[in-house]
């Protein structure tokens, strides 16, 4: 185990790195959300409700209703790039076909929906 000052130093460095990374990332996400059309999102979300329970029940497939729009955009982008844990072929295949405008529109609409 590293001593306290060392650990604090590491944490600080990590926080800094994440902040820089998060900055560029959140700018990209904000740009995507700026293009959103909630009506288009509502239409597209019909194609999500086949799997993601319309009232937000989580059972084998997680709920996506009422999640923050920024989180939704980020998560869908992770599937699109099959990053980290986001390798489920079903979601990767779906995300691959979504444009930035569509991802933003979906996130905007889904974030306004209430889970049961």
């Amino acid at each position, binding site marked *: 185990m590293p001593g306290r000052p060392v650990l604090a130093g590491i944490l600080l460095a990590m926080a800094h790195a994440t902040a820089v990374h998060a900055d560029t990332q959140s700018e990209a996400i904000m740009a995507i959300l700026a293009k959103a059309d909630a009506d288009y999102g509502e239409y597209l979300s019909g*194609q999500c409700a*086949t799997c993601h329970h319309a009232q937000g029940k989580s059972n*084998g*497939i997680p709920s996506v209703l009422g999640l923050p729009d920024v989180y939704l955009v980020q998560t869908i982008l992770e599937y699109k790039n099959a990053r980290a844990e986001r390798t489920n*072929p*079903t979601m990767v*295949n*779906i995300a691959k*076909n979504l444009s930035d405008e569509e991802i933003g529109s979906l996130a905007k609409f889904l974030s306004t929906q209430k889970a049961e």
Partner: protein
Amino acid sequence: MYKLTRRRFASLIGASATGVAASSLAAPAVLSAAKSRLVVIGGGPAGATTARYVAKAAKDVAVTIIEPKHHFTTCFFSNLYLGGFRTLESITHGYSTLAAEYGINVVHDVAVDVDGAGKKVKLGRGGDLPYDRLVVTPGIDMRYDTIEGYSPEASTVMPHAWQAGTQTAVLKQQLEAMEDGGTFVMCPPPNPFRCPPGPYERVCMVAHYLKTNKPKSKIIVLDAKDKFSKQALFQEAWAQHYDGMIEWLPKEVTGGVKAVNTDSMEIMTDGETFKASVANVIPAQKAGVIAERAGLTADNGWCPIDPSSMRSKMNEDTFVVGDASVASAMPKSAFSANSQAKVAANAILADLTGSKKFPAKYRNTCWSLVATSDGVKVGADYAGGEEKIDVTSKFISKTGEAADLRAQTAEEANGWYEGITKDIFG
């Protein structure tokens, strides 16, 4: 409830008449009727989803579903019932939410004819239902005449169980009554047919039941084809879980099933006769007969549609959704039907209310349970092309996947069942 006086009634009519006059300046022609009418023939995945999405979006469209059944048993997951993983009740759904929460008028009757020029549907018990837009979703009918000796009566002895409910229950009872050491013979249909992986998932589920309860039994599959959906995955599962129990004979080996005899329980191919303890005969298929009566079918027995909207190519006031349509490259599945329904609903709403028509995007995923906690899947995304519905990208489970991934896939299928039935029936 308050009473409508004659004067108040007159003023209501006056008010709505003015409203219509004002809005009709910009809106499509159908708006000139007070409340536009959508009639949907069939309350399966295709019909109920279309009705629900239109009713959900537009309170000023009167939506009617014509469906003879009071309860709808899903074909999807009916193989799991045969395998002992599900009860029939757990895959049976009612229409009360669609009526109560979405204001959909569910008429339990059969549509016997369609007057396309006069825009009305004739009901079995008499009377007509007028419409502004019609959605035809009768699913499939069997081509009994493609196998000599097979008929609706013969199907009570050799069930197809390809329309869920009584047929599925009959097949289950026959399996339960079968002796240990008996032979289960399945005859899968030629393309195109409802649920391409369905027969082979059923082989797995029947094998699971037999292995657990009647391990000396055998399964013979007399296919009308030389290859089938998810073949490598199914054949892997057959070898891994049910080694030696299943014999699959492609058409190139047998020439295909030519005739059946329900008295002797025999199934005849070109050169050979097979004797069955239980026979599951699934004949070639076509769109439900009402589609043909309505003049919506092509020579091949299925209904051509415009890939950008699911609008019938035979009648522009009519949409055909689900198994009855020619939606290739999409397979005939509940997932496809549910997906197409949303594209159709968007186009219908654009017609009736002037709302925005968005690009046609479709999706399908078919999970199959091959053994306890062992699921596989195949899926694709699609877009409406010029000539047909084109695949934009696809995926499939791999052979040799780890058990925990397969268990997760099986669990996902359960989540999907919850999701889609909610999306269909409300």
